[in-house]
């Protein structure tokens, strides 16, 4: 199964000791702004346990990091790389007293025909989350479509030839950082997503004063 290829790549990434050093110093938390980019809605989808659940589950002082993937992705620089980065973020979140419990990582498949709850649960087990990391899919495309439109995510079936699916999807892999008011505060391209940047952004958002936190 193609998702095993992706999961194996993720496993190898997780086993790589240490992180490559950044070629720059990260800006200090709170030293920069992350102005709201857009606002999204809450959506109800199928969790990896097969039950319907809210995708974001946000309230003031909480954050969500949402990534769209599909398990048939063979592009090592696409979904597998994105999931590897999220796994690193998961480990860092679990180790952070300030962030642990405040952040939900969300991985959502936009290929419900192939990535059902069982497949997403297999992925969840492979990634072995240590923080609040949830996995979702749709019952069908109709359930998923409002989410894709809300996040302006395109996922176009790729064709081998006219009328013949390649079994793959063209998409621009992005990760969304969302605050407790469901405002998108940053968007990351998968090719340049580094967990350290994501954590620093979460720390920056946490440093913002907000009533009700």
């Amino acid at each position, binding site marked *: 199964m193609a998702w095993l290829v992706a999961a194996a790549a993720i496993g190898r990434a997780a086993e790589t000791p240490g992180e490559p050093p950044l070629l*720059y110093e990260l*800006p200090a938390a709170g030293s920069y702004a992350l102005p709201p980019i857009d606002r999204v809605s809450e959506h109800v989808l199928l969790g990896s346990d097969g039950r319907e659940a809210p995708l974001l589950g946000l309230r003031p002082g909480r954050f969500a990091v949402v990534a769209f993937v599909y398990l048939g992705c063979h592009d090592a620089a696409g979904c597998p790389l994105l999931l590897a980065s999220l796994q690193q973020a998961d480990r860092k979140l679990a180790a952070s007293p300030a962030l642990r419990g405040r952040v939900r990582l969300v991985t959502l498949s936009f290929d419900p025909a192939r990535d059902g709850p069982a497949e997403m649960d297999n992925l969840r087990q492979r990634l072995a989350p240590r923080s609040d990391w949830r996995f979702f899919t749709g019952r069908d495309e109709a359930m998923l479509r409002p989410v894709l439109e809300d996040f*302006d995510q395109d996922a176009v079936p*790729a064709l081998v030839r006219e009328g013949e699916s390649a079994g793959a999807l063209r*998409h*621009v*892999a992005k990760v969304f950082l969302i605050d407790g008011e469901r405002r998108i505060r940053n968007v990351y*391209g998968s090719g*340049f997503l580094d967990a350290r940047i994501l954590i620093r952004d979460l720390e920056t958002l946490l440093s913002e004063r907000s009533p009700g936190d």
Partner: protein
Amino acid sequence: MRSNPVRRSLAALGVLSLASALPALADETCQSPYLPRLVGQEDFVYVWTLGIDGVGDGSDKLVTIGANPAKPGYGTVVSTVSVGGRHEAHHGGPTDDRRHLWVGGLDDSRIFIFDVASDPAHPKLERTISDFPEKTGGVVGPHGFYALPGRMLISALSNSRDGGGRTALVEYNHDGEFIRTIWMPEGATYGYDARIKPELNRMLTSSFTGKNNYMRKLSELLGDAEAMKHFGDSMVVWDYHARKPLQTLKVPGAPLEIRWALAPEHHYAFTAAALTSKLIGVFRKPDGSFEAVEIADIGDPSQTPLPVDISLSADDKSLFVDTFMDGKVRVFDVSQPRSPKQIYEKKIGPQVNMVSQTWDGKRVYFTTSLLANWDGVGGDDAQFLKAFGWDGKQLSPRFEIDFRAEKLGRPHIMNFGQAGLYKTQAQRGVDPGEPG
């Protein structure tokens, strides 16, 4: 050993590669690193074109040129979309998913957003932003449109308070809603281009001049010594993630287009200073700061050939530099970036501005217009798009389109398009991109 450029580009791809072999990439080398790269032959060149009074409808328009020799419409005008009026059409760029093309006008600061995904051969004007100065706090002249994930970064040229060169960077979301304005720092208040090297978390900006100058007839401007003092002389190095200026580099003579080297391990960029006719290298030093160094003359600086657009090849070895006043392109071998050598020169026409090359380096396109009041200062205001093949040694003509004869206007920025990027249209029985 330097990594294969295709593999390097795949590291930034969000688009699935279907072929088991490495795909041939066709995209312009100057595009944002956050874009999915075009795979295979480009099908179209989208040309943002400035209207000419008395020529055709006289309006600014997006012109779609057929660019695939295997498809009907090759080398011809496939479609046009007039936006009504002349706004000083100048530059534009696609969104991070390549579904929309944002283009701007330097005179009234209007921004036009085209849908290029639904029918790549026939873009549709989807939205117009008419309140850019008001929303941004007085920024004028949206110049560069650079895709960020989920946003558009716009580098501007001027301001509404005094029409001078003090300006800002602006961000909008994909719905055309304003996000923020980042004013250029004190001591380096002018703007022009903004380019990002994500591996370094560094953004470089350059500096041109304000609306008082760029909307003025060039012949008058050149004779106004006071006005000629108001051109940019700096580049700024930014912490891109924090959007904080870190360093100001002194680069006299209006440094314009910036091109970062594309290899992740190449930590330098090139620009050309228009008024001094110098090729500039911006190099990262061991301590992480940058230095700007004059590395070559472009033509004979005493003749002020006015270098404008530049294009770096995907392997970081060749740099195409256009000079507006003599209509030439010069190709430099920049494999040793601190000591470039000119290896080729060709006169493209009486005047030339923009140059776009494909990622595989085999095709190169040129257009003519710089600014409505600057074009034709040499006496011959020819307006064209010319396409060439490039074999590493010489340019060979492929096709050309006379934009005056076709009653279109002054062609400026080019962006490539490809029908195969949006395959759902094929599923619906509509073959995307067929002209007519």
